[in-house]
């Protein structure tokens, strides 16, 4: 399978639109976004955005504040309904809501943790809502992985910002989603936290999970992403290749 990457940092919208389509069969796409337009009130946040993300691929979305990065992520997560355009998830443009939710793990700009519940209870609740079997074992493993074992019975409000971010990321993958969407995952993480995140990305790649994340951290972005999509004023203005080694999907090309 042929894969097209653009190496120039800035492209015109037309060129970017042509370039961001990965050449593979429909079933290989985790996400296909076409002509997506989203508005908040009268403000057009996204304008005719087109993007495809292959399964197992890691795509970073970068851009200045207000570029529409988080909105794009929310649209892909199904949390915001666009006014125009189409999104297909794993080849399906109109999936059942519960089926789509089971395939997606999402962490927004805010962690979405219940401050009064303990770290363990937050994971247990997320697991129960997702119908995860053996949720106690799964939650324990995730807490251990995020180095939060000692904080398991502490309320989330007593955790540090970085711990809460790790807990939120752990919560987003409690149901082992095929597509992980993270809005600025490294924002509150220290060096150790960033290393943990890097390891997590590697594990997701080995498991064939697709990742799309928004980031302002240029180094992390280039290390973790197969492709870097640059948004400006709601439009894709550039797509770069990340420095991450090619995924299984790419190697098979």
């Amino acid at each position, binding site marked *: 399978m042929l894969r097209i990457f653009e190496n120039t940092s800035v492209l015109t919208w037309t060129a970017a639109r042509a370039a961001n389509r990965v050449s593979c069969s429909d079933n290989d796409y985790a996400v296909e976004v076409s002509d997506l337009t989203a508005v908040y009130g009268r403000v057009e946040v996204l304008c005719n955005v087109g993007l495809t993300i292959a399964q197992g691929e890691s795509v970073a979305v970068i851009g200045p504040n207000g570029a529409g990065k988080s909105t794009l992520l929310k649209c892909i997560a199904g*949390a915001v309904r666009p006014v125009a355009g189409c999104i297909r998830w794993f080849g399906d443009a109109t999936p059942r809501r519960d089926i789509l939710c089971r395939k997606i793990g999402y962490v927004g*700009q805010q*962690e*979405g943790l*219940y401050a009064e*519940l303990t770290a363990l209870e937050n994971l247990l609740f997320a697991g129960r809502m997702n*119908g995860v079997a053996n949720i106690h074992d799964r939650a324990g493993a995730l807490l251990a992985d995020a180095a939060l074992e000692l904080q398991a019975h502490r309320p989330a409000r007593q955790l540090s910002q970085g711990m809460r971010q790790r807990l939120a990321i752990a919560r987003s993958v409690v149901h082992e989603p095929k597509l992980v969407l993270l809005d600025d995952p490294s924002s509150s993480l220290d060096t150790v936290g960033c290393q943990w995140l890097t390891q997590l990305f590697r594990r997701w790649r080995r498991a064939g999970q697709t990742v799309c994340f928004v980031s302002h951290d240029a180094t992390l972005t280039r290390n973790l992403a197969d492709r870097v999509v640059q948004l400006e004023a709601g439009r894709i203005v550039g797509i770069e290749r990340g420095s991450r080694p090619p995924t299984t999907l790419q190697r098979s090309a």
Partner: protein
Amino acid sequence: MSSRQIVNSLWWLIHKDLSRELRAQLVWPSTVLLGLVLVFLLATQLDLPVEEKTQVAGGLLWLAIFFAGSLACERSFTTERDNGCWQVLAMYPIAPSVLFLAKMAVNLVALAILELVLVPMFIVLSDVPLGARPGPLLLTATLGNVGFAAVGTLVSGLTTGLRHRGSVLALLLLPLVIPVLFGSAEATRMLISDQINSQWWLWIRLLAVFAFVFTILGALLFEFIMEE
């Protein structure tokens, strides 16, 4: 979703809200306090002959319960909005109607607790024989609570993302709950006056229909409310 999954989700959603409330006292203390102040003011100002007092007592009691209860309904969503929890909740594979029913159930518990405190206090302060017919009173209160919780949950969910949600909530909620308020007040007035007749049953039926319609409507419309 199987019915077992639905019941499980409903239970854990209610469990989560009750756990949060019991640990942090997010909503209920302020709701009960507002109710106590209203009941105290209304009951102590009710300096009327017994006959006239029984005519207005029910209306005043329900007015206090609904004002204080609207605070509980409104806060049940704002605490969820804090820290982006609502967005995460909306992304779980649970039917929006289940989420609505869970929120409504928690609001029903809040209203029940509120009434457990306010009704005895109102009886003591106003000296109205409200507790003489506990069965009919319980039926009136239950149907009034279900109707109010259904409308309150629906409207609170609708306004929770708005900047001026307090004023919009009042504008939408108060006209919508007038049938419940009126029905509950009339049914209570009649049971205080020992007039449990066909007319009383008519008010009870109105409350039951209202509760049923708004519960179904809320469960159906909640999907649109959940969208950002």
